[in-house]
């Protein structure tokens, strides 16, 4: 595999990714339509940075991650990781690629096999990909456990003996033992208690610095993403509707959905009462998305264009890094 990460300085480049799931109906299970779970997503992640993907449940953020790893069949598009076209790679090559991209999952209970010891859970990727066994394996497991803040005696214990936060540390150790270039964190703290969340978020940041990791960070919590990420993309119904650097997005959100999403977060300041900026309605069914902009049924500013054409994701005037898909705000 190539060692220098470029493609114009990007470690990961996703280009017009589409992942559609067929909808089958009737006796013959004929395909009657498609659910466009991911519909034309493009993103690029620089090495040693964090790219955040936020959105509400069902917006397609996890499907993007799975598509990148080819864990589900992709309909069209391009995924270039470390100069390799992932979607064109054969299965042997794909094995190598997967050693360079690892995952941290949301549920620290469901993602660890209860019958395996921590040594086996954390060491398995090394056995599979690097064929390392015996004392060298144990040594590496010990080392990575100490990096994620677990004591050495954890090695022979089982997942049920650990708390949620500690299990998440085990999951992180498993993701890092192969020294991956890209770590996809899928809601890594949303199942954890408040006092544990900050421990794990700090740990992820420390590890990023120490190992120059690149994160694709998937979350629904805008405050968490703000703390962890450099660039943030907001997804709605399979599309990116706005993307900018963290400070730009949080200081100057433009898309009506981003604005409403920020307003909906309960704030810890008693003086300001609940915001009146409320989104009406719910996310439309992805089986029958509305024509035009997918946000139009809930949007407060809708013009003619909004109901006929889907707005493209384009840079806003004066800032090439701030991308927006909205007819109204562009005017």
């Amino acid at each position, binding site marked *: 595999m190539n060692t220098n990460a470029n493609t114009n300085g990007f470690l990961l480049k996703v280009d017009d990714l589409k992942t559609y799931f067929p909808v089958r109906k009737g006796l013959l299970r004929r395909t009657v339509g498609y659910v466009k779970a991911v519909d034309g997503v493009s993103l690029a992640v620089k090495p040693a940075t964090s790219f955040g993907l936020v959105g509400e449940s069902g917006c397609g953020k996890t499907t993007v991650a799975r598509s990148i790893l080819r864990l589900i069949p992709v309909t069209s598009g391009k995924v270039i990781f470390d100069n390799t076209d992932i979607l064109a790679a054969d299965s042997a090559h794909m094995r190598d690629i997967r050693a360079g991209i690892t995952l941290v999952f949301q549920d620290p209970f469901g993602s660890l096999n209860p019958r395996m010891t921590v040594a086996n859970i954390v060491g398995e990727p090394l056995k599979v990909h690097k064929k390392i066994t015996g004392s060298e394996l144990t040594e590496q497991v010990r080392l990575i456990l100490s990096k994620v803040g677990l004591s050495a005696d954890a090695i022979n214990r089982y997942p049920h003996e650990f708390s949620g*936060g500690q299990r998440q540390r085990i999951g992180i150790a498993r993701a890092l033992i192969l020294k991956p270039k890209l770590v996809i964190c899928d809601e890594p703290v949303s199942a954890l208690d408040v006092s*544990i*969340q900050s421990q794990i978020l*700090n740990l992820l940041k420390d590890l990023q610095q120490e190992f120059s990791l690149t994160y694709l960070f998937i979350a629904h919590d805008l*405050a968490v993403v703000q703390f962890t990420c450099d660039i943030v993309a907001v997804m709605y119904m399979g599309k990116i509707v706005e993307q900018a650097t963290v400070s730009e997005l949080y200081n100057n959100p433009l898309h009506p959905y981003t604005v409403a999403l920020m*307003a909906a977060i309960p704030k810890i300041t008693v003086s300001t009462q609940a915001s009146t900026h409320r989104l009406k309605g719910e996310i439309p069914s992805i089986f029958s998305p509305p024509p035009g902009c997918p946000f139009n049924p809930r949007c407060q500013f809708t013009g003619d264009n909004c109901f006929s054409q889907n707005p493209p994701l384009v840079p806003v005037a004066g800032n090439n890094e701030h991308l927006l898909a909205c007819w109204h705000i562009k005017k």
Partner: protein
Amino acid sequence: MSDNGILLDIKGLCVNFFTENGVAKAVQDVSFSVKKGETFALVGESGCGKSVTALSVMRLIADPPGKIVAGEIIFDGRNLLELSEHRMRSVRGNSIAMIFQEPMTSLNPVYTVGEQIVETIRLHQKKNEVEAWELATEMLRKVGISDPGQRITEYPHQMSGGMRQRVMIAMAISCEPELLIADEPTTALDVTIQAQILDLLDQLQGQSQMSVLLITHNLGIVAERARNVAVMYASRIAELSDCKSLFDKPLHPYTQGLLKSLPRLGFTGKRLYTIPGIVPEPLHFPAGCKFHPRCPIGCNNKRCQTVEPQLRSLDNGRAVACWFAPGYERPDDPK
């Protein structure tokens, strides 16, 4: 209703779970009161005893293994713990209603939502079938479900999570309860839907003077919605206060740590504050103050390690359980 406007008064509640591995003291000496028409928040992390407290009010603790071993729960002048099961049934779902975190599992998948709401109504009110259906439709309209006449014939799986939670609320308020216990009502929902549901609860409360006991782990929700709040840690109330004072000047080191450790919108620092260690489990509570192993003050203090501070009212109307909180210490305390 007593004169001082207090609807629910919990005094010295203790709940134990008798397990194979020992007695887990899930709730210890919890006391607080909820006034008529107010939203009272019970906030804490998982396993701190907040849900067990709520279930005790409904007398829904599974016995065995659980048992309410001490305390009083005075609701509307009556101690609920002394009522017969028969009389308790007329309280449950009628004057005290409850909504849960997961609206999918708390609705029965094989009945339409209409049938489920009608069942509640007919159980508690003298209404015939037709009147009950009319009331159920009216309730669905009240909780903001469009086209209630159609929706009432649908099954839970045909609805989204937010819609199901609206149905749960419709069912809960159909008997005009005086107290609504909302146990993490929005935790399973997306933020934009969460805001809608909390707005709905506010609005219903404004119409009916219902009290809400809101159980949550989300301090943001507490700050926006509650008037008074009890912070629970390891089976006890660590701090009891009005909301504004709590967020302005938290007294207990646990509350202080929690507030500092939250990632907030607008935070631009490099690292978050962290409370070290993990939440202790009921079977392995540390001696002394249960927070002392994680506390910046208590971890090295002899008294914190050995003597557990009780929740004490301070002069300013707040209450706290910490030896080092200003105004807490009394002359005859152990040193």
